[in-house]
Protein backbone atom coordinates (compact mmCIF):
# COMPACT_ATOMS: atom_id res chain seq x y z
CA UNK A 1 0.00 0.00 0.00
CA UNK A 2 1.21 3.48 -0.86
CA UNK A 3 1.40 6.43 1.49
CA UNK A 4 -0.02 9.80 0.70
CA UNK A 5 3.47 11.15 0.03
CA UNK A 6 4.17 8.30 -2.32
CA UNK A 7 1.00 8.99 -4.28
CA UNK A 8 2.05 12.62 -4.68
CA UNK A 9 5.44 11.54 -5.88
CA UNK A 10 3.91 9.21 -8.44
CA UNK A 11 1.75 12.03 -9.76
CA UNK A 12 4.87 14.13 -10.26
CA UNK A 13 6.52 11.33 -12.15
CA UNK A 14 3.48 10.80 -14.37
CA UNK A 15 3.51 14.49 -15.28
CA UNK A 16 7.24 14.77 -15.77
CA UNK A 17 7.44 11.79 -18.04
CA UNK A 18 4.32 12.88 -19.88
CA UNK A 19 2.67 9.53 -19.25
CA UNK A 20 -0.92 9.06 -20.29
CA UNK A 21 -1.78 7.15 -17.16
CA UNK A 22 -0.69 4.85 -14.38
CA UNK A 23 -2.55 2.13 -12.53
CA UNK A 24 -1.39 0.20 -9.50
CA UNK A 25 -3.54 -2.55 -8.07
CA UNK A 26 -2.94 -4.82 -5.12
CA UNK A 27 -5.21 -7.07 -3.17
CA UNK A 28 -6.75 -4.29 -1.14
CA UNK A 29 -5.50 -1.22 -2.92
CA UNK A 30 -5.96 0.37 -6.31
CA UNK A 31 -4.46 3.62 -7.64
CA UNK A 32 -5.15 5.12 -11.03
CA UNK A 33 -3.68 8.35 -12.38
CA UNK A 34 -4.88 9.71 -15.73
CA UNK A 35 -2.14 11.83 -17.26
CA UNK A 36 -2.51 15.30 -18.65
CA UNK A 37 -4.87 15.82 -21.53
CA UNK A 38 -3.08 14.95 -24.76
CA UNK A 39 -1.64 18.00 -26.52
CA UNK A 40 -3.59 18.68 -29.69
CA UNK A 41 -1.68 17.85 -32.81
CA UNK A 42 -0.65 21.18 -34.31
CA UNK A 43 -3.07 22.21 -36.98
CA UNK A 44 -0.27 23.04 -39.37
CA UNK A 45 0.21 19.35 -39.84
CA UNK A 46 -3.43 18.58 -40.29
CA UNK A 47 -3.55 21.21 -42.95
CA UNK A 48 -0.91 19.62 -45.16
CA UNK A 49 -2.85 19.02 -48.36
CA UNK A 50 -2.62 15.42 -49.34
CA UNK A 51 -1.02 16.19 -52.69
CA UNK A 52 1.91 17.71 -50.84
CA UNK A 53 2.36 15.14 -48.18
CA UNK A 54 5.54 13.82 -49.69
CA UNK A 55 7.29 17.14 -49.98
CA UNK A 56 8.43 17.49 -46.41
CA UNK A 57 9.50 13.96 -45.72
CA UNK A 58 13.12 14.79 -46.20
CA UNK A 59 12.99 17.15 -43.25
CA UNK A 60 14.73 15.51 -40.33
CA UNK A 61 13.20 18.02 -37.90
CA UNK A 62 9.71 16.84 -38.65
CA UNK A 63 9.52 14.29 -35.87
CA UNK A 64 10.37 16.90 -33.27
CA UNK A 65 7.69 19.26 -34.51
CA UNK A 66 4.79 17.49 -32.90
CA UNK A 67 5.63 18.82 -29.47
CA UNK A 68 4.47 22.24 -28.51
CA UNK A 69 7.82 22.65 -26.78
CA UNK A 70 9.80 21.89 -29.90
CA UNK A 71 11.15 25.42 -30.10
CA UNK A 72 13.10 24.86 -26.93
CA UNK A 73 13.96 21.21 -27.29
CA UNK A 74 15.13 21.79 -30.85
CA UNK A 75 17.92 23.92 -29.47
CA UNK A 76 19.13 21.51 -26.86
CA UNK A 77 17.56 18.16 -27.34
CA UNK A 78 17.74 15.96 -24.30
CA UNK A 79 17.56 12.54 -25.89
CA UNK A 80 18.13 10.58 -22.73
CA UNK A 81 19.56 10.79 -19.26
CA UNK A 82 22.41 13.25 -19.27
CA UNK A 83 23.22 13.22 -22.99
CA UNK A 84 22.75 16.33 -25.04
CA UNK A 85 22.69 17.36 -28.62
CA UNK A 86 24.77 19.90 -30.50
CA UNK A 87 22.55 21.65 -33.05
CA UNK A 88 23.46 23.80 -36.01
CA UNK A 89 23.39 27.51 -35.14
CA UNK A 90 23.00 28.45 -38.82
CA UNK A 91 21.65 27.25 -42.13
CA UNK A 92 24.30 25.86 -44.43
CA UNK A 93 26.19 22.80 -45.59
CA UNK A 94 27.66 20.38 -43.07
CA UNK A 95 31.25 19.22 -43.46
CA UNK A 96 32.69 16.62 -41.13
CA UNK A 97 36.27 17.41 -42.08
CA UNK A 98 38.27 20.59 -42.86
CA UNK A 99 38.85 19.48 -46.47
CA UNK A 100 37.77 16.59 -48.68
CA UNK A 101 41.08 14.75 -48.21
CA UNK A 102 41.39 15.37 -44.48
CA UNK A 103 40.17 13.13 -41.67
CA UNK A 104 36.93 14.03 -39.93
CA UNK A 105 37.25 16.40 -36.99
CA UNK A 106 35.73 13.80 -34.68
CA UNK A 107 34.53 10.21 -34.69
CA UNK A 108 32.17 8.25 -32.49
CA UNK A 109 33.80 7.49 -29.17
CA UNK A 110 36.15 10.48 -29.32
CA UNK A 111 36.48 12.49 -26.18
CA UNK A 112 36.06 16.18 -26.86
CA UNK A 113 36.71 19.33 -24.87
CA UNK A 114 34.49 22.35 -24.64
CA UNK A 115 35.50 24.68 -27.47
CA UNK A 116 36.91 21.92 -29.66
CA UNK A 117 35.89 22.14 -33.33
CA UNK A 118 33.46 19.35 -34.26
CA UNK A 119 32.58 20.23 -37.85
CA UNK A 120 32.13 23.02 -40.35
CA UNK A 121 28.85 24.52 -41.54
CA UNK A 122 29.39 26.49 -44.72
CA UNK A 123 27.10 29.45 -45.32
CA UNK A 124 27.64 31.87 -48.19
CA UNK A 125 31.15 30.47 -48.87
CA UNK A 126 32.10 31.12 -45.24
CA UNK A 127 33.37 28.12 -43.31
CA UNK A 128 31.86 28.33 -39.82
CA UNK A 129 33.59 26.09 -37.31
CA UNK A 130 31.13 24.56 -34.90
CA UNK A 131 32.58 23.97 -31.44
CA UNK A 132 31.57 21.63 -28.68
CA UNK A 133 29.85 23.44 -25.85
CA UNK A 134 30.94 20.94 -23.19
CA UNK A 135 33.46 18.25 -22.35
CA UNK A 136 32.31 14.75 -23.14
CA UNK A 137 32.25 11.79 -25.50
CA UNK A 138 30.77 11.76 -28.99
CA UNK A 139 28.14 9.06 -29.00
CA UNK A 140 26.37 9.87 -32.24
CA UNK A 141 27.12 11.85 -35.41
CA UNK A 142 23.89 12.94 -37.06
CA UNK A 143 25.17 15.41 -39.66
CA UNK A 144 26.02 13.85 -42.99
CA UNK A 145 29.02 15.10 -44.94
CA UNK A 146 28.32 17.76 -47.57
CA UNK A 147 24.61 17.72 -46.81
CA UNK A 148 22.47 20.79 -46.07
CA UNK A 149 21.51 21.51 -42.48
CA UNK A 150 18.87 23.90 -41.16
CA UNK A 151 18.96 26.12 -38.13
CA UNK A 152 18.46 24.01 -35.02
CA UNK A 153 19.08 20.71 -36.76
CA UNK A 154 20.93 18.19 -34.54
CA UNK A 155 24.51 17.45 -35.55
CA UNK A 156 26.11 15.49 -32.69
CA UNK A 157 25.02 13.71 -29.52
CA UNK A 158 27.46 14.00 -26.63
CA UNK A 159 27.68 12.16 -23.34
CA UNK A 160 29.02 14.86 -21.04
CA UNK A 161 32.02 13.98 -18.96
Amino acid sequence: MLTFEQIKELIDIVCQKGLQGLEVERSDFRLRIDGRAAPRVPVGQELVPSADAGASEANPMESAENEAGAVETGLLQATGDGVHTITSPIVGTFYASPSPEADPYVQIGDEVKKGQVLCIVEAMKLMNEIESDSDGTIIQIIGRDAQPVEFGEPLFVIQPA
Partner: protein
Amino acid sequence: MFRKILIANRGEIALRIIQACRELGIRTVAVYSTADRDSLHVTYADEEVCIGPPPSSQSYLNISSVISAAEITGAEAVHPGYGFLAENASFAEALEECRIGWIGPQAKSIRLMGDKSKARQTALEAGVPVVPGTTEPITAVDEAKRMAAEVGYPVILKAAAGGGGRGMRIVQDESQFESQLETASEEAERAFGDGAVYLEKYLVEPRHIEFQILGDRFGRVVHLGERECSIQRRHQKLIEEAPSPALSGDLRQRMGEAAVRLAQYVGYQNAGTVEFLLDQDGSFFFMEMNTRIQVEHPVTEVVTGLDLVKLQLKIAAGEPLEVGEGITARGHAIECRINAEHPETLTPSPGKITTFHPPGGPGVRVDTHAYEHYVIPPHYDSLIGKLIVHGADRQEAMVRMERALDFFVIEGVHTSIALQRQIIQDPRFRSGEFSTRFMERFRMIPAEAVAQGA
Protein backbone atom coordinates in the same frame (compact mmCIF):
# COMPACT_ATOMS: atom_id res chain seq x y z
CA MET B 1 10.54 31.26 -66.10
CA PHE B 2 12.09 30.22 -62.77
CA ARG B 3 11.67 26.61 -61.72
CA LYS B 4 12.17 27.27 -58.01
CA ILE B 5 12.29 30.41 -55.90
CA LEU B 6 12.77 31.18 -52.24
CA ILE B 7 10.38 33.41 -50.36
CA ALA B 8 12.25 35.54 -47.83
CA ASN B 9 9.18 36.41 -45.79
CA ARG B 10 6.39 35.06 -43.64
CA GLY B 11 2.67 35.64 -43.04
CA GLU B 12 0.06 36.51 -45.61
CA ILE B 13 2.50 37.89 -48.19
CA ALA B 14 4.54 34.67 -48.16
CA LEU B 15 1.32 32.77 -48.82
CA ARG B 16 0.36 35.26 -51.53
CA ILE B 17 3.67 34.62 -53.30
CA ILE B 18 3.19 30.85 -52.99
CA GLN B 19 -0.22 31.22 -54.68
CA ALA B 20 1.30 33.11 -57.60
CA CYS B 21 4.11 30.57 -57.94
CA ARG B 22 1.69 27.66 -57.94
CA GLU B 23 -0.23 29.23 -60.77
CA LEU B 24 2.98 29.70 -62.75
CA GLY B 25 4.31 26.22 -61.99
CA ILE B 26 7.24 27.51 -59.92
CA ARG B 27 8.35 25.47 -56.92
CA THR B 28 8.66 27.39 -53.66
CA VAL B 29 11.03 27.32 -50.72
CA ALA B 30 9.73 28.79 -47.47
CA VAL B 31 12.11 30.01 -44.80
CA TYR B 32 10.91 30.25 -41.23
CA SER B 33 11.99 31.02 -37.73
CA THR B 34 11.32 28.52 -34.97
CA ALA B 35 8.32 30.66 -33.95
CA ASP B 36 6.69 30.03 -37.34
CA ARG B 37 6.87 26.26 -37.56
CA ASP B 38 3.09 25.93 -37.72
CA SER B 39 2.62 28.76 -40.20
CA LEU B 40 0.75 28.16 -43.41
CA HIS B 41 3.58 29.44 -45.60
CA VAL B 42 5.62 26.52 -44.26
CA THR B 43 2.75 24.10 -44.85
CA TYR B 44 1.98 25.20 -48.37
CA ALA B 45 5.51 25.71 -49.73
CA ASP B 46 7.10 22.82 -51.60
CA GLU B 47 10.20 22.97 -49.40
CA GLU B 48 10.97 24.71 -46.16
CA VAL B 49 14.11 25.67 -44.30
CA CYS B 50 14.35 26.78 -40.69
CA ILE B 51 16.67 29.79 -40.68
CA GLY B 52 16.85 30.84 -37.05
CA PRO B 53 15.25 31.66 -33.73
CA PRO B 54 12.20 33.94 -33.33
CA PRO B 55 13.86 37.40 -33.35
CA SER B 56 13.76 38.59 -36.95
CA SER B 57 17.29 40.00 -36.65
CA GLN B 58 18.46 36.38 -36.33
CA SER B 59 16.08 34.86 -38.88
CA TYR B 60 14.11 36.83 -41.47
CA LEU B 61 16.60 39.71 -41.43
CA ASN B 62 19.66 37.48 -41.41
CA ILE B 63 20.99 37.91 -44.95
CA SER B 64 23.54 35.13 -44.68
CA SER B 65 20.96 32.61 -43.44
CA VAL B 66 18.46 33.49 -46.13
CA ILE B 67 21.06 33.21 -48.86
CA SER B 68 22.37 29.92 -47.44
CA ALA B 69 18.83 28.60 -47.49
CA ALA B 70 18.59 29.54 -51.17
CA GLU B 71 21.91 27.87 -51.86
CA ILE B 72 21.18 24.57 -50.13
CA THR B 73 17.80 24.28 -51.83
CA GLY B 74 18.94 25.41 -55.26
CA ALA B 75 16.47 28.28 -55.46
CA GLU B 76 17.08 30.39 -58.56
CA ALA B 77 15.69 33.64 -57.20
CA VAL B 78 14.37 35.27 -54.05
CA HIS B 79 11.09 37.12 -53.58
CA PRO B 80 11.36 39.39 -50.56
CA GLY B 81 7.67 40.32 -50.11
CA TYR B 82 7.35 43.59 -48.15
CA GLY B 83 9.13 44.56 -44.96
CA PHE B 84 12.14 42.58 -43.68
CA LEU B 85 14.75 42.60 -46.48
CA ALA B 86 12.49 43.91 -49.25
CA GLU B 87 14.14 47.33 -49.46
CA ASN B 88 17.63 46.31 -48.45
CA ALA B 89 19.95 47.15 -51.34
CA SER B 90 22.84 45.20 -49.78
CA PHE B 91 20.72 42.07 -49.77
CA ALA B 92 19.90 42.52 -53.45
CA GLU B 93 23.59 42.99 -54.16
CA ALA B 94 24.64 39.98 -52.07
CA LEU B 95 22.19 37.83 -54.03
CA GLU B 96 23.63 39.08 -57.27
CA GLU B 97 27.14 38.17 -56.10
CA CYS B 98 25.88 34.69 -55.26
CA ARG B 99 24.26 34.52 -58.72
CA ILE B 100 20.78 34.23 -57.25
CA GLY B 101 18.00 36.18 -58.92
CA TRP B 102 16.12 39.02 -57.22
CA ILE B 103 12.43 39.57 -57.72
CA GLY B 104 12.44 43.30 -57.31
CA PRO B 105 14.01 46.44 -58.68
CA GLN B 106 17.75 46.88 -59.20
CA ALA B 107 19.82 47.54 -56.10
CA LYS B 108 20.65 51.05 -57.33
CA SER B 109 16.97 51.97 -57.53
CA ILE B 110 16.39 50.68 -53.99
CA ARG B 111 19.35 52.66 -52.69
CA LEU B 112 18.44 55.86 -54.53
CA MET B 113 14.80 55.85 -53.43
CA GLY B 114 15.70 54.78 -49.90
CA ASP B 115 17.54 58.07 -49.39
CA LYS B 116 14.86 60.71 -48.82
CA SER B 117 16.86 63.71 -49.95
CA LYS B 118 18.30 61.97 -53.01
CA ALA B 119 14.83 60.74 -53.92
CA ARG B 120 13.49 64.29 -53.65
CA GLN B 121 16.34 65.58 -55.81
CA THR B 122 15.70 62.84 -58.39
CA ALA B 123 12.00 63.70 -58.53
CA LEU B 124 12.88 67.35 -59.18
CA GLU B 125 15.23 66.32 -61.97
CA ALA B 126 12.53 64.14 -63.49
CA GLY B 127 10.14 67.09 -63.46
CA VAL B 128 7.93 65.65 -60.73
CA PRO B 129 6.74 68.25 -58.20
CA VAL B 130 7.91 67.94 -54.59
CA VAL B 131 6.58 69.88 -51.61
CA PRO B 132 8.01 73.39 -52.18
CA GLY B 133 10.43 74.77 -49.60
CA THR B 134 14.05 75.52 -48.82
CA THR B 135 16.69 72.92 -49.48
CA GLU B 136 19.17 74.65 -47.18
CA PRO B 137 18.54 75.81 -43.59
CA ILE B 138 17.17 79.32 -43.20
CA THR B 139 19.87 81.92 -42.62
CA ALA B 140 18.31 85.22 -43.67
CA VAL B 141 14.84 86.00 -42.31
CA ASP B 142 13.94 88.23 -45.24
CA GLU B 143 14.77 85.64 -47.84
CA ALA B 144 12.86 83.03 -45.87
CA LYS B 145 9.85 85.36 -45.77
CA ARG B 146 10.03 85.84 -49.52
CA MET B 147 10.21 82.07 -49.94
CA ALA B 148 7.19 81.60 -47.66
CA ALA B 149 5.20 84.11 -49.68
CA GLU B 150 6.22 82.26 -52.83
CA VAL B 151 5.10 78.79 -51.70
CA GLY B 152 2.05 80.32 -50.02
CA TYR B 153 0.87 80.24 -46.40
CA PRO B 154 0.49 78.25 -44.25
CA VAL B 155 4.09 77.08 -44.17
CA ILE B 156 5.81 74.73 -41.76
CA LEU B 157 9.18 75.25 -40.11
CA LYS B 158 11.07 72.02 -39.45
CA ALA B 159 14.22 71.41 -37.45
CA ALA B 160 16.93 70.18 -39.82
CA ALA B 161 18.08 67.70 -37.18
CA GLY B 162 14.52 67.01 -36.10
CA GLY B 163 11.88 64.39 -35.87
CA GLY B 164 8.94 63.48 -33.70
CA GLY B 165 7.20 66.82 -34.00
CA ARG B 166 9.72 68.79 -31.91
CA GLY B 167 11.00 71.95 -33.47
CA MET B 168 8.05 72.03 -35.85
CA ARG B 169 5.95 75.17 -36.20
CA ILE B 170 3.09 75.94 -38.51
CA VAL B 171 2.96 79.57 -39.63
CA GLN B 172 -0.47 80.73 -40.74
CA ASP B 173 0.49 84.12 -42.18
CA GLU B 174 3.39 86.53 -42.59
CA SER B 175 2.66 88.51 -39.40
CA GLN B 176 3.62 85.46 -37.28
CA PHE B 177 6.62 84.49 -39.35
CA GLU B 178 9.47 86.03 -37.35
CA SER B 179 8.23 85.05 -33.91
CA GLN B 180 7.50 81.47 -34.99
CA LEU B 181 10.88 81.16 -36.67
CA GLU B 182 12.50 82.25 -33.42
CA THR B 183 10.52 79.72 -31.38
CA ALA B 184 11.18 76.90 -33.83
CA SER B 185 14.88 77.65 -33.87
CA GLU B 186 15.05 77.82 -30.06
CA GLU B 187 13.15 74.53 -29.72
CA ALA B 188 15.43 72.91 -32.24
CA GLU B 189 18.50 74.23 -30.43
CA ARG B 190 17.24 72.91 -27.11
CA ALA B 191 16.10 69.55 -28.47
CA PHE B 192 18.87 68.71 -30.89
CA GLY B 193 21.63 71.18 -30.10
CA ASP B 194 21.19 72.55 -33.61
CA GLY B 195 18.95 75.53 -34.34
CA ALA B 196 18.96 75.08 -38.13
CA VAL B 197 15.42 75.18 -39.53
CA TYR B 198 13.96 74.44 -42.97
CA LEU B 199 10.83 75.93 -44.46
CA GLU B 200 8.26 73.92 -46.37
CA LYS B 201 4.77 74.49 -47.71
CA TYR B 202 2.26 73.18 -45.16
CA LEU B 203 -0.52 71.03 -46.56
CA VAL B 204 -3.52 71.45 -44.28
CA GLU B 205 -5.63 68.49 -45.36
CA PRO B 206 -3.49 66.42 -47.71
CA ARG B 207 -4.53 63.07 -49.09
CA HIS B 208 -2.15 60.17 -49.47
CA ILE B 209 -2.46 58.99 -53.08
CA GLU B 210 -0.07 56.43 -54.51
CA PHE B 211 0.40 55.08 -58.00
CA GLN B 212 1.25 51.49 -58.79
CA ILE B 213 4.11 51.24 -61.28
CA LEU B 214 5.44 48.34 -63.29
CA GLY B 215 8.62 48.46 -65.34
CA ASP B 216 10.16 45.70 -67.41
CA ARG B 217 13.77 45.09 -68.47
CA PHE B 218 13.12 46.66 -71.84
CA GLY B 219 12.53 50.14 -70.50
CA ARG B 220 8.76 49.99 -70.65
CA VAL B 221 6.96 51.49 -67.64
CA VAL B 222 3.22 51.60 -67.05
CA HIS B 223 1.10 52.70 -64.14
CA LEU B 224 -1.99 50.77 -63.00
CA GLY B 225 -3.84 53.67 -61.48
CA GLU B 226 -3.90 54.99 -57.97
CA ARG B 227 -4.69 53.84 -54.47
CA GLU B 228 -6.26 56.13 -51.87
CA CYS B 229 -4.44 55.54 -48.57
CA SER B 230 -5.42 58.56 -46.45
CA ILE B 231 -6.98 56.46 -43.68
CA GLN B 232 -3.91 56.01 -41.53
CA ARG B 233 -3.10 56.13 -37.85
CA ARG B 234 0.44 56.87 -36.70
CA HIS B 235 1.49 56.51 -40.34
CA GLN B 236 0.05 52.99 -40.42
CA LYS B 237 -2.46 52.53 -43.20
CA LEU B 238 -5.72 51.03 -42.03
CA ILE B 239 -7.97 51.17 -45.09
CA GLU B 240 -7.03 51.61 -48.73
CA GLU B 241 -9.17 51.91 -51.81
CA ALA B 242 -9.00 52.18 -55.59
CA PRO B 243 -9.81 54.37 -57.33
CA SER B 244 -9.54 57.45 -55.09
CA PRO B 245 -12.81 59.37 -54.71
CA ALA B 246 -10.74 62.58 -55.00
CA LEU B 247 -9.29 62.16 -58.48
CA SER B 248 -10.79 63.45 -61.68
CA GLY B 249 -9.82 61.73 -64.90
CA ASP B 250 -7.57 64.62 -65.77
CA LEU B 251 -5.80 64.66 -62.41
CA ARG B 252 -5.38 60.88 -62.53
CA GLN B 253 -3.75 61.20 -65.90
CA ARG B 254 -1.35 63.93 -64.78
CA MET B 255 -0.36 62.14 -61.57
CA GLY B 256 0.01 58.83 -63.37
CA GLU B 257 2.23 60.44 -65.98
CA ALA B 258 4.38 62.00 -63.27
CA ALA B 259 4.77 58.63 -61.57
CA VAL B 260 5.74 56.94 -64.83
CA ARG B 261 8.14 59.80 -65.63
CA LEU B 262 9.97 59.34 -62.34
CA ALA B 263 10.17 55.56 -62.73
CA GLN B 264 11.40 55.92 -66.27
CA TYR B 265 13.98 58.53 -65.25
CA VAL B 266 15.63 56.08 -62.85
CA GLY B 267 15.26 53.12 -65.23
CA TYR B 268 12.97 51.41 -62.76
CA GLN B 269 12.27 47.71 -63.13
CA ASN B 270 9.64 45.49 -61.50
CA ALA B 271 6.82 46.70 -59.22
CA GLY B 272 7.02 49.95 -57.31
CA THR B 273 4.82 52.61 -55.83
CA VAL B 274 5.12 56.37 -56.16
CA GLU B 275 3.50 58.11 -53.19
CA PHE B 276 2.11 61.60 -53.51
CA LEU B 277 0.52 64.11 -51.19
CA LEU B 278 -2.52 65.65 -52.86
CA ASP B 279 -3.46 69.14 -51.68
CA GLN B 280 -7.05 70.35 -51.49
CA ASP B 281 -6.50 72.59 -54.52
CA GLY B 282 -5.57 69.61 -56.67
CA SER B 283 -1.82 70.20 -56.65
CA PHE B 284 0.23 67.10 -55.89
CA PHE B 285 3.71 66.50 -54.57
CA PHE B 286 6.06 63.55 -54.64
CA MET B 287 6.54 62.07 -51.17
CA GLU B 288 8.52 58.86 -51.65
CA MET B 289 8.83 55.77 -53.78
CA ASN B 290 8.47 52.28 -52.34
CA THR B 291 10.62 49.83 -54.22
CA ARG B 292 8.61 46.67 -53.48
CA ILE B 293 5.16 45.14 -53.59
CA GLN B 294 2.85 46.94 -51.15
CA VAL B 295 0.57 45.46 -48.52
CA GLU B 296 -2.36 47.11 -50.31
CA HIS B 297 -1.58 45.78 -53.80
CA PRO B 298 -4.82 43.72 -53.88
CA VAL B 299 -7.07 46.77 -54.38
CA THR B 300 -5.22 47.44 -57.64
CA GLU B 301 -5.45 43.77 -58.59
CA VAL B 302 -9.17 43.68 -57.96
CA VAL B 303 -10.05 46.68 -60.12
CA THR B 304 -7.58 45.93 -62.92
CA GLY B 305 -7.97 42.14 -62.94
CA LEU B 306 -4.17 41.78 -63.00
CA ASP B 307 -2.03 39.59 -60.75
CA LEU B 308 0.80 41.87 -59.59
CA VAL B 309 2.88 39.16 -57.96
CA LYS B 310 2.80 37.06 -61.11
CA LEU B 311 3.82 40.12 -63.10
CA GLN B 312 6.73 40.67 -60.68
CA LEU B 313 7.88 37.11 -61.31
CA LYS B 314 7.56 37.45 -65.07
CA ILE B 315 9.46 40.72 -65.15
CA ALA B 316 12.24 39.30 -62.96
CA ALA B 317 12.46 36.30 -65.30
CA GLY B 318 13.11 38.71 -68.16
CA GLU B 319 9.71 38.66 -69.84
CA PRO B 320 8.39 41.86 -71.39
CA LEU B 321 5.37 43.48 -69.74
CA GLU B 322 2.28 41.93 -71.24
CA VAL B 323 0.08 44.70 -69.88
CA GLY B 324 -1.56 46.98 -72.42
CA GLU B 325 -1.59 50.79 -72.28
CA GLY B 326 -4.48 52.49 -70.59
CA ILE B 327 -5.49 49.74 -68.18
CA THR B 328 -9.05 50.44 -67.13
CA ALA B 329 -10.24 50.02 -63.60
CA ARG B 330 -13.56 48.23 -63.23
CA GLY B 331 -15.66 49.07 -60.21
CA HIS B 332 -14.29 50.04 -56.84
CA ALA B 333 -12.17 48.15 -54.32
CA ILE B 334 -11.61 48.67 -50.60
CA GLU B 335 -9.16 46.87 -48.36
CA CYS B 336 -9.22 46.64 -44.57
CA ARG B 337 -6.06 45.47 -42.85
CA ILE B 338 -7.07 43.05 -40.14
CA ASN B 339 -4.61 43.44 -37.30
CA ALA B 340 -4.44 41.38 -34.13
CA GLU B 341 -4.63 44.35 -31.82
CA HIS B 342 -7.06 45.89 -29.43
CA PRO B 343 -9.31 48.15 -31.54
CA GLU B 344 -9.30 50.95 -28.98
CA THR B 345 -5.88 50.85 -27.33
CA LEU B 346 -4.10 49.48 -30.42
CA THR B 347 -1.93 47.25 -28.26
CA PRO B 348 -0.92 44.06 -30.08
CA SER B 349 -2.91 40.96 -29.24
CA PRO B 350 -0.87 37.84 -30.00
CA GLY B 351 -2.12 34.41 -28.96
CA LYS B 352 -4.29 31.60 -30.11
CA ILE B 353 -7.13 32.13 -32.56
CA THR B 354 -9.98 29.98 -31.25
CA THR B 355 -12.52 30.72 -33.99
CA PHE B 356 -11.68 31.85 -37.49
CA HIS B 357 -14.45 32.22 -40.01
CA PRO B 358 -13.67 34.42 -43.02
CA PRO B 359 -16.51 35.92 -45.08
CA GLY B 360 -17.24 34.80 -48.65
CA GLY B 361 -19.73 35.49 -51.40
CA PRO B 362 -19.63 37.98 -54.26
CA GLY B 363 -16.83 40.53 -54.43
CA VAL B 364 -15.02 39.34 -51.31
CA ARG B 365 -11.35 38.39 -51.21
CA VAL B 366 -9.44 37.34 -48.11
CA ASP B 367 -5.64 37.20 -48.00
CA THR B 368 -4.59 35.60 -44.76
CA HIS B 369 -2.22 33.14 -43.18
CA ALA B 370 -4.47 32.73 -40.14
CA TYR B 371 -6.67 29.74 -39.39
CA GLU B 372 -8.62 28.25 -36.52
CA HIS B 373 -6.15 27.21 -33.77
CA TYR B 374 -3.31 29.31 -35.25
CA VAL B 375 -1.14 30.91 -32.59
CA ILE B 376 -0.07 34.44 -33.53
CA PRO B 377 3.53 34.77 -32.37
CA PRO B 378 4.41 37.96 -30.48
CA HIS B 379 7.62 38.54 -32.44
CA TYR B 380 6.32 40.04 -35.67
CA ASP B 381 3.83 42.61 -36.85
CA SER B 382 0.18 42.28 -36.00
CA LEU B 383 -1.26 41.98 -39.54
CA ILE B 384 -3.17 38.70 -39.67
CA GLY B 385 -5.09 39.23 -42.85
CA LYS B 386 -6.51 41.57 -45.43
CA LEU B 387 -10.14 41.78 -46.35
CA ILE B 388 -10.67 43.16 -49.85
CA VAL B 389 -14.04 43.83 -51.43
CA HIS B 390 -14.99 44.72 -54.98
CA GLY B 391 -18.19 46.53 -55.89
CA ALA B 392 -19.66 48.06 -59.02
CA ASP B 393 -19.08 51.48 -57.45
CA ARG B 394 -17.83 52.98 -54.17
CA GLN B 395 -21.28 52.73 -52.61
CA GLU B 396 -21.54 49.01 -53.27
CA ALA B 397 -17.96 48.45 -52.12
CA MET B 398 -18.73 50.17 -48.81
CA VAL B 399 -21.89 48.21 -48.01
CA ARG B 400 -20.13 45.04 -49.09
CA MET B 401 -17.24 45.80 -46.76
CA GLU B 402 -19.70 46.38 -43.91
CA ARG B 403 -21.34 43.06 -44.65
CA ALA B 404 -18.01 41.24 -44.92
CA LEU B 405 -16.70 42.76 -41.66
CA ASP B 406 -19.95 41.72 -39.94
CA PHE B 407 -19.53 38.15 -41.17
CA PHE B 408 -15.82 37.91 -40.34
CA VAL B 409 -15.58 36.05 -37.04
CA ILE B 410 -12.25 35.91 -35.23
CA GLU B 411 -12.15 34.87 -31.59
CA GLY B 412 -9.36 34.36 -29.10
CA VAL B 413 -7.51 37.57 -29.95
CA HIS B 414 -8.54 41.18 -30.34
CA THR B 415 -8.72 42.48 -33.90
CA SER B 416 -9.19 45.77 -35.68
CA ILE B 417 -12.49 44.60 -37.20
CA ALA B 418 -14.68 46.61 -34.81
CA LEU B 419 -12.65 49.77 -35.50
CA GLN B 420 -12.84 49.32 -39.24
CA ARG B 421 -16.56 48.70 -39.14
CA GLN B 422 -16.98 52.10 -37.47
CA ILE B 423 -14.70 53.84 -39.94
CA ILE B 424 -16.62 52.40 -42.89
CA GLN B 425 -19.85 53.68 -41.32
CA ASP B 426 -18.43 57.14 -40.59
CA PRO B 427 -20.28 59.85 -42.57
CA ARG B 428 -17.04 61.54 -43.61
CA PHE B 429 -15.58 58.29 -44.86
CA ARG B 430 -18.84 57.64 -46.68
CA SER B 431 -18.72 61.07 -48.35
CA GLY B 432 -15.23 60.45 -49.69
CA GLU B 433 -14.19 63.86 -48.35
CA PHE B 434 -11.29 63.17 -46.02
CA SER B 435 -7.57 63.65 -45.62
CA THR B 436 -4.67 61.95 -43.84
CA ARG B 437 -5.93 63.72 -40.71
CA PHE B 438 -9.12 61.62 -40.69
CA MET B 439 -7.96 59.37 -37.86
CA GLU B 440 -6.83 62.34 -35.70
CA ARG B 441 -10.45 63.34 -35.42
CA PHE B 442 -11.96 59.87 -35.39
CA ARG B 443 -13.13 58.68 -31.99
CA MET B 444 -14.05 55.08 -31.69
CA ILE B 445 -17.26 54.28 -29.86
CA PRO B 446 -16.28 51.66 -27.26
CA ALA B 447 -17.74 48.20 -27.66
CA GLU B 448 -19.95 48.57 -24.54
CA ALA B 449 -21.55 51.71 -25.92
CA VAL B 450 -22.19 50.02 -29.26
CA ALA B 451 -23.84 47.11 -27.47
CA GLN B 452 -26.05 49.47 -25.44
CA GLY B 453 -27.11 51.38 -28.48
CA ALA B 454 -28.10 48.22 -30.32
